[in-house]
């Protein structure tokens, strides 16, 4: 069977599985729809959170980023994993104890203010839509490359399947499909990675293979790769390229942003007990780490391949997949010196441009693996994109149906009506997702930086102080959230869209690291403003106090 038929079979089978799970887990109440009635086991929730967190960007783009950026790419791995320590220690168990359905609900009730609630709604929706655009795009790319559909059709099909389980099943449906999606995506990621590792280092465990010697045992793999990079004028794979402070700011922005991401935090509202919330974060990070540990390996392996097997080869001899990617514009070869040979070098004589995003998708073909592995990778990429999209849709729909409608505009709604409202909002959000997938803003990566910046600078300080500083009042929180939001937004808009000169960066911190200064500023403003007003009322302070102690005492 050819690759395309196999891919079609794998993708259809995985979609059918998700649809069946969705059918079996219909949401019957808002409790079901918002938090799966708090009945998910910590282990299952760990898997669901891992799938929720690992997006199209993780699965498709990260191996490429690490491959091309070398050591500097590690900040994405540190950021994506380190935030879970903050979640476990500072956020998830407390918010689970507080017992609300959404982040704006926590902020609104903790700060006894609908203004605070609305600011949190704006942040949550903004973060989720920017993220959603990236997922839909990922779905489209996978469909167009592997099934030769148009990107638009791919987006419609992907949105259709998310629609079924997100709108029908709410959090309950999403949770169990995410568990299935985790299994699909981890399998799809490990298989080609393990094959590549055996091929290059004879070691079947990729993250050990990376530190092993090359297949003939003559030299350490890392040394060989560093040597190749140097020979062609690139920086060594293990060498640092950006300024230290910028890397620190990026890593901290990503970590703190992760700990403030609404679609991740709400996953921990679905477990039965506070102690389960803690344990569940541990499982989630364990499941994420299994994949993250393999990212540098697959990145380095594929990099070696490009440097060894593509560089200096006659263009006429390139493998079939090279031409396929060239056909959709993601590999460009420009024979500058007209010798018909591919020169892949640093600097102006370079003739080959490789889009980062193809690196992992192409890795099974690079390693000449059987067609079913390629089909598996396609299904895995879709699982990664769809699972994240569903979590984001839920944040958007609950922010509107619960935090705007039920809590503010139409408090008289019955549970049934609120459930219907949540479904309608979810459906509308799918519609917006389709729009972004088909008309992608050309700046998806930039807007994702923005999402992390806002989560770190606007949401994290308000949530953290809400737990650890019981006197914190609404005035301080609102001022802090707005400061974080406006600061991050203007920094990124100025430097990314209005042509701000990178030489003017604050202390050399790029737009992707804006969350760190933004968070510090937000903390300072929150503390200073709160001094001018009365501390939180006694009943609120008591609520906060309650969050800190074990249940049932």
């Amino acid at each position, binding site marked *: 069977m050819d690759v395309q038929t196999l891919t079609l079979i794998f993708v259809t089978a995985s979609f059918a599985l998700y649809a069946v799970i969705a059918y079996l887990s219909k949401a019957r109440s808002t409790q079901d729809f918002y938090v799966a009635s708090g009945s998910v086991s910590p282990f299952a929730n760990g898997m669901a959170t891992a799938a929720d967190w690992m997006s199209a960007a993780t699965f498709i783009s990260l191996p490429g980023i690490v491959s091309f950026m070398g050591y500097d790419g590690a900040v994405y791995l540190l950021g994506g994993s380190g935030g879970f320590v903050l979640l476990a220690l500072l956020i998830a168990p407390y918010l689970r104890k507080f017992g609300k359905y959404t982040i704006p609900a926590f902020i609104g009730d903790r700060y006894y203010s609908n203004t605070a609630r609305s600011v949190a709604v704006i942040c949550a929706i903004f973060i989720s839509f920017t993220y959603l655009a990236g997922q839909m795009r990922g779905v489209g790319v996978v469909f167009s490359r592997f099934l030769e559909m148009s990107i638009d059709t791919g987006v419609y099909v992907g949105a259709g399947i998310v629609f079924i389980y997100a709108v029908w099943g709410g959090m309950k449906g999403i949770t169990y499909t995410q568990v299935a999606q985790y299994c699909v995506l981890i399998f799809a990621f490990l298989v080609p990675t393990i094959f590549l590792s055996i091929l290059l280092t004879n070691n079947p465990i990729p993250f050990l293979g*990376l530190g*092993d010697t090359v297949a003939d045992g003559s030299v350490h793999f890392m040394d060989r790769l560093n040597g190749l990079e140097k020979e062609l004028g690139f920086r060594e794979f293990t060498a640092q390229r950006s300024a230290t402070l910028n890397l620190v700011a990026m*890593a901290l922005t990503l970590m703190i942003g992760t700990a403030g991401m609404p679609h991740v935090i709400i996953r921990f509202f679905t477990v039965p007990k506070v102690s389960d919330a*803690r344990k569940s974060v541990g499982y989630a990070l364990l499941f994420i780490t299994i994949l993250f540990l393999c990212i540098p390996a697959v990145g380095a392996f594929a990099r070696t391949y490009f440097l060894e097997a593509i560089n200096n080869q006659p263009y006429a001899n390139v493998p079939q997949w090279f031409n396929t990617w060239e056909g959709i514009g993601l590999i460009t070869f420009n024979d500058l010196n007209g010798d018909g040979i591919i020169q892949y070098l640093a600097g102006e004589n370079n003739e080959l441009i490789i889009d980062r995003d193809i690196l992992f998708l192409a890795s099974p073909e690079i390693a000449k693996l059987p067609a079913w592995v390629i089909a598996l990778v396609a299904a895995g990429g879709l699982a990664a994109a769809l699972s994240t999209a569903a979590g984001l849709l839920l944040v958007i729909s609950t922010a509107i149906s619960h935090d705007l409608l039920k809590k503010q505009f139409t408090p008289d709604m019955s549970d049934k009506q609120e459930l219907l409202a949540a479904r309608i909002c979810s459906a509308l959000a799918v519609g917006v997702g389709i729009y972004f997938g088909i008309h992608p803003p050309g700046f998806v990566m930039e807007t994702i930086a923005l999402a992390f910046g806002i989560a770190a600078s606007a949401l994290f300080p308000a949530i953290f102080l809400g737990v650890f500083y019981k006197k914190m009042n609404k005035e301080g929180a609102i001022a802090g959230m707005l400061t974080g939001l406006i600061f991050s937004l203007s920094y990124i808009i100025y430097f990314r869209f209005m042509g701000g000169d990178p030489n003017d960066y604050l202390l050399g911190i790029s737009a992707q690291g804006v969350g760190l200064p933004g968070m510090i500023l937000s903390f300072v403003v929150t503390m200073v403003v709160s001094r001018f007003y009365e501390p939180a009322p006694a009943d609120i302070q008591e609520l906060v106090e309650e969050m*800190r*102690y074990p249940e049932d005492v």
Partner: protein
Amino acid sequence: MQKKKYWQTKIKYLLVLLSIWFTVSILCSIVFVHQLNAVKLGGFPLGFWFAMQGSMIIFVILIFVYVRLINQLDKKYKAEN
């Protein structure tokens, strides 16, 4: 156990674990990466290894240690109240 003591113990755990978190992820992986790279761990320069693998493994351990510590603390707290 007094409520105050329970909370203070918890904060103490947090501070210790978070300083480890900061040390491996920011200090070992980024700030002192150059110095650590002089040491080799198998085929890896040590600082590079912390950034790409070591920190993540330590993060997972940190969370499970925290889960254990707090479960014990909770148990003690409940037993004494």
